[in-house]
């Protein structure tokens, strides 16, 4: 475990708490993007909350999961409860997708897919140029790996031996308008990323301990290869009626649905 980080022993409880906060934010906002936020909560716990050191960077490339990022930064004390409470409101610094230049924990505005990996690659390369011991983390969706920039950046990272780049893929198998297998086919597979020259790892994206262990292992491998952790996740994880349902990328919750969602999370994470 990295010494500068908060010691957390009960990741399951934290995962439940962050899920309840995400649900509360979306309910108050009467907005969608719930399922894709719930699928990456445990990745945020492992990478941003637990593994990121002060000199490291973390970029949420799948900007539509902004609420998950906001509650994680709130947990770290980088976004206050008062600011978090302004989510989605007029005059907020926390819009549906992360905004530029507003919070130290949000280095870049994201929301248009395919931007995060090139930026994180540049940050990793900058650290190499200045001989800084810093990891550049970037969290992408599996649908996002459809983007051509993914493959431009991947080859650049390989060519420049950026072994301080750690790509996390939230592989929930669903994208904007279909299953990833049905849209362009799988673009986030172990075989494809190995074939182009990445150091590839797989993990259960809802097991924070296992994710932390994997990241710990990955960050210590100074082998000249950029890293990718393909994390198998479930869209809407923790809420029975949202799990693996594409519509929960978009839909807001009714009052009754919100009550069910909270009960599901409490039952799954606090019992």
């Amino acid at each position, binding site marked *: 475990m990295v010494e500068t980080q908060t010691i957390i022993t009960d990741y399951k409880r934290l995962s439940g708490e962050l899920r309840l906060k995400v649900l509360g934010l979306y309910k108050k906002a009467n907005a969608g993007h719930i399922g894709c936020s719930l699928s990456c909560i445990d990745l945020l716990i492992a990478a941003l909350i637990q593994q990121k050191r002060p000199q490291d960077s973390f970029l949420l490339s799948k900007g539509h999961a902004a609420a998950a990022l906001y509650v994680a930064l709130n947990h770290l004390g980088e976004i206050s409860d008062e600011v978090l409470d302004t989510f989605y409101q007029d005059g907020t610094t926390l819009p549906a997708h992360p905004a530029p230049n507003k919070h130290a924990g949000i280095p870049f505005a994201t929301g248009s897919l395919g931007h995060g990996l*090139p930026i994180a690659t*540049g*940050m990793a*390369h*900058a650290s190499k140029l200045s001989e800084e011991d810093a990891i550049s983390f970037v969290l992408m969706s599996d649908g996002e790996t459809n983007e051509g920039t993914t493959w431009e*950046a991947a*080859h*650049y990272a390989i*060519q*420049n031996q950026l072994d301080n780049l750690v790509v996390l893929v939230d592989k929930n198998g669903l994208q904007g308008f279909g299953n990833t297998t049905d849209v362009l086919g799988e673009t986030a597979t172990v075989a494809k990323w190995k074939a182009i020259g990445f150091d590839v790892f797989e993990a259960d994206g809802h097991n924070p301990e296992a994710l932390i262990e994997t990241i710990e292992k990955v960050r210590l491998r100074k082998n000249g290869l950029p890293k990718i952790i393909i994390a198998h996740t479930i869209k809407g994880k923790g809420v029975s009626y949202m799990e693996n349902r594409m519509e929960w990328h978009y839909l807001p919750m009714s009052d009754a649905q919100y009550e069910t969602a909270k009960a599901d999370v409490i039952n799954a994470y606090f019992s």
Partner: protein
Amino acid sequence: MRKEFSAAIEKLALADESIVFITGDLGYNALENLQEKLGKRFINAGVAEQNMVGVAAGMAYKGYKVFCYSIAPFVVYRCLEQFRNDACLHNLPVFLVGNGGGYGYGIMGSTHHAIEDLACLSSLQNVKTWIPAFSDEVEPVLTQIVHEKHPAYLRLGVGPLTPEGAVLSGSLKKVVHTPNAQTAIIALGPIAANVLKALQEPELQTSCSVYTALSLPLQLTDATLQELQQAENILVVEEHVSIGGLGQQLSVKLLEAGIHPQRFQSLSALGYPNGLYGSQQYHQTQSGLDVKNIANVLRSFAESPLLHTNHPHS
């Protein structure tokens, strides 16, 4: 201006270790000195312009000042969203450099032309676009870009040396000063050379002042506005489409300042009006940006009170 450009970058980068130079796999017979001298700070990002600009933004966030080089159309259009979202919205020092702006790549064809670049880029947040008309402007412009540390675009072309006595005020550089001039000509970039050639005719020389617009968005000083107010005719000459170009930016500024010249005419890039292709000079002629048409338009100002259209040789 490529040679002046690479010499200036070499000088600046050797003095400032935070400068990184990335090329999108172009620069043969122009950038070899940088490849040799800058070491790890010279990067060939391959034929992948979107990633090049995203990488540049990531590096800029970490404290570097990053140039991204390609030919103008490739570094403007393909990666416009990366420049907008990743560099400009964050006000990061990412500097696009496009060689051969306008019809500069001539017979290479329309994919290699950049005649809408300034409309695209000068409208973005926090950005300044630079359009040197003269080759000796490249080094001071680059020095300014590095000093300002804001997103920037530099459009390179081919130009002569700055005429003696030129004075910069705001965006406009007065390169020909004629007392009590009836006509003020404002040119964008190296097309200024055609304007200066047109003015070699003695009867035109005595009636025109000439300015070049070095940067956009256009900034006009009070002194320049007062000078423009004295002119009966204003002629804009730009190797760029009318929409979003110098003419439109200037006309808004003039109207906002309450200045209403008797004539305001804009000669601009018309695209490919006859669907045929040729050298830069060929395309300039098709758009009425050639020396002969510029001279004809200026002559007509003296001869006729009527407004003239943007068609060549009318």
